[in-house]
C-alpha cells in the first residue's frame, strides 16, 4: 500500500502544499472528492470540471495508472489501492484490462487537459476539459482547428469599422 513505488511523474504537480479543495469536510473530504472524479474519468474518459479540482485529481489518476502498469492485478497491495480509489467497483477490471494495455508502450502522461473559455456573463469560474488519451470519442483538437472566429466580438467590431471606413472614404470622394 504505502510501499508501492513507480517512475517519475511527467506532469506538472505541486510539490509542497496540497490544494484545499473542500472548505468544511477537511482532508478526508478532499480525498473523497478526488475518488469521485477518478471514477468519473475512468467511466466517461472525458469530463469537464473546475480548474483547481482537475489539476489536483489529475496527479492521482496518473499515479494510479502508473502503479497499475507496474504491479498488475495480481498484487495484493495494488488491488487494495484500486479498491480504495475507485468507488464504482465495475471499473476496477476496466483499469487493468482496458486502460493498462492501452498505455503499455507509453511513458508519458496518460491524460490530456484543455482550457475552456470563461462564461460571460458569469462568476468567472475557470473550467478545464480533462480526458484519457487515445479514447474512442471524436477528437477535440480537430474541432479546435476547424473553429471559426467570425462571431467573436472583436472580429464583429473590426468588420463594422471596415464598413464604416469604406463608407466614409466614398463620401469624401463625392465631396
Amino acid at each position, binding site marked *: *500500500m*504505502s510501499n*508501492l*513505488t*513507480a*517512475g*517519475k*511523474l511527467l506532469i506538472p*504537480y505541486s*510539490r509542497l502544499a*496540497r490544494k484545499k479543495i473542500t472548505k468544511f469536510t477537511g*482532508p*478526508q473530504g478532499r*480525498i473523497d472528492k478526488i475518488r469521485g472524479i477518478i471514477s468519473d474519468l475512468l467511466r466517461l474518459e472525458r469530463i469537464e470540471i473546475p480548474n483547481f479540482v482537475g489539476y489536483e485529481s489529475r*496527479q*492521482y489518476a496518473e*499515479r*494510479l495508472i502508473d*502503479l497499475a502498469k507496474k504491479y498488475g492485478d495480481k498484487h495484493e497491495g495494488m488491488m487494495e*489501492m484500486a479498491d*480504495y*480509489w475507485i468507488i464504482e467497483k465495475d471499473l476496477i477490471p476496466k483499469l487493468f484490462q482496458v486502460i493498462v494495455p492501452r498505455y503499455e508502450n507509453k511513458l508519458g502522461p496518460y491524460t490530456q487537459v484543455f482550457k475552456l473559455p470563461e462564461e460571460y456573463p458569469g462568476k468567472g469560474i475557470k473550467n478545464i476539459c480533462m480526458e484519457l488519451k487515445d479514447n474512442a470519442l471524436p477528437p477535440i483538437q480537430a474541432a479546435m482547428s476547424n473553429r471559426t472566429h467570425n462571431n467573436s466580438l472583436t472580429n464583429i467590431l473590426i468588420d463594422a469599422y471596415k464598413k464604416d471606413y469604406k463608407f466614409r472614404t466614398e463620401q469624401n470622394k463625392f465631396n
Partner: protein
Amino acid sequence: MFQLYEKIPYLLARQPNALKQTIQTIAARNYTNTVPNRILEKARRSKLGAAAKGPSVGSDERPKLEQAEYSQAERDYKYIYPDFLPNPVYYFRDKIREKLERIDMINRRKQITIPEFYVGSIMAVTVSDPYAPGKSNRFVGICIRRDEYGLKHSFTLRNVIDGLGVEIMYDLYNPTIRSIEVLKLEKRLDDNLSYLQDSPPEYSTIPFDFEPVKLLPGMKVPVNMTKVPLKNKPWRHAWDRKALRGVILPEIKRYQHEEYMNSSSDFKPYEKWDLMKNYRETIHDDDHREIVQDIKKFESEITDKQEIVTAAKKLVRTRHIPKETPSNEKK
C-alpha cells in the same frame, strides 16, 4: 604517589624485584572513575549489589521477549542501505553532492564492515575514547531510531544501566567508530521505538555480555511481534495520538481518548492511501536505480576482494608443498 617514593628504598632493601612488581601493578591500574564492564556486570548480578533494588537484576528473566512470535519480512536494498537514499524534499537535494557523498560513504565502508541492521535489532558499538580504560568504549543496546540522510546518517542505542536509561547517538560514518556489531538481527513493528522511554525498563535492558544470535544463511530478517505496555501519564510525547502498532496503551477514559482523536492533527487514517503524499516523501524508481547501481558495484568489488584473498591463501598453501620435495631429492 608520594607515599610510594618514601617506600622505595625500604622495598629495595627487602626485595629486589618489588619495584618492578609495583610499577607493573600501577601501570595496569587506571586512575579514572570508570569501572571495567566485567566487574560492573558481576556487581549487578550479585544480590548484595547496589542495584539490587533496581529492575536490571531480573534482566535474565525476560519471558515476554523470549516467547515472542516471529514473522519474516522482505529483503530489499531500500531497507538494507537506508543511508544511501537522499532527502526526498526537493529543495534539500543536490545531485552532485549526493554523488560525492556516496563515494565517501563507499570508501568508508571499505575500511570497516558496517553490517545490515534495523530499528529494533540489538547492537554493540566500540568507539575510540582517549579517557576510557584501554582507550576504547563499548556500548550495547537496542537500536531505537535511524535519522538523517546520506553522510549525516545516525542511529541511537538505548539501554538501562543500574535503573537509569541511557541513550547514545552515533554517526554511522564517524571515523572514531572502531567496530559495529549486530548481536541480534531483527525488526520491530514500528520504525521508531522512542516510546521505550515511557515503558517499563525490562523492555530496554540488555546485559553487556549479550551473546550474539546467528541467523541461518538465506533466511529472511525476522520481525519481533512484541507489544510494549506503556506507563501511565505523563509521557514524553503523546503516544496515543500516533498510529503505533507495537504499543499497549494504559486505560484512558473514553471521552478523553475520543477528544484526542477528533482534535489531533497527527491521527490521519487516510494517509496511507494518499498516493501523492507517498510520492513526495519517497524517491521514485528512476532515481533509485542510479543509487542501486552504485551499491551493486561496491558489493561486487568486495566479493572480488574476498575471492582474491581466498585465492592467495590457496597459493600460499600450494607453495609450501614443493619446498619439501627438492629437499627429499637432494638426499
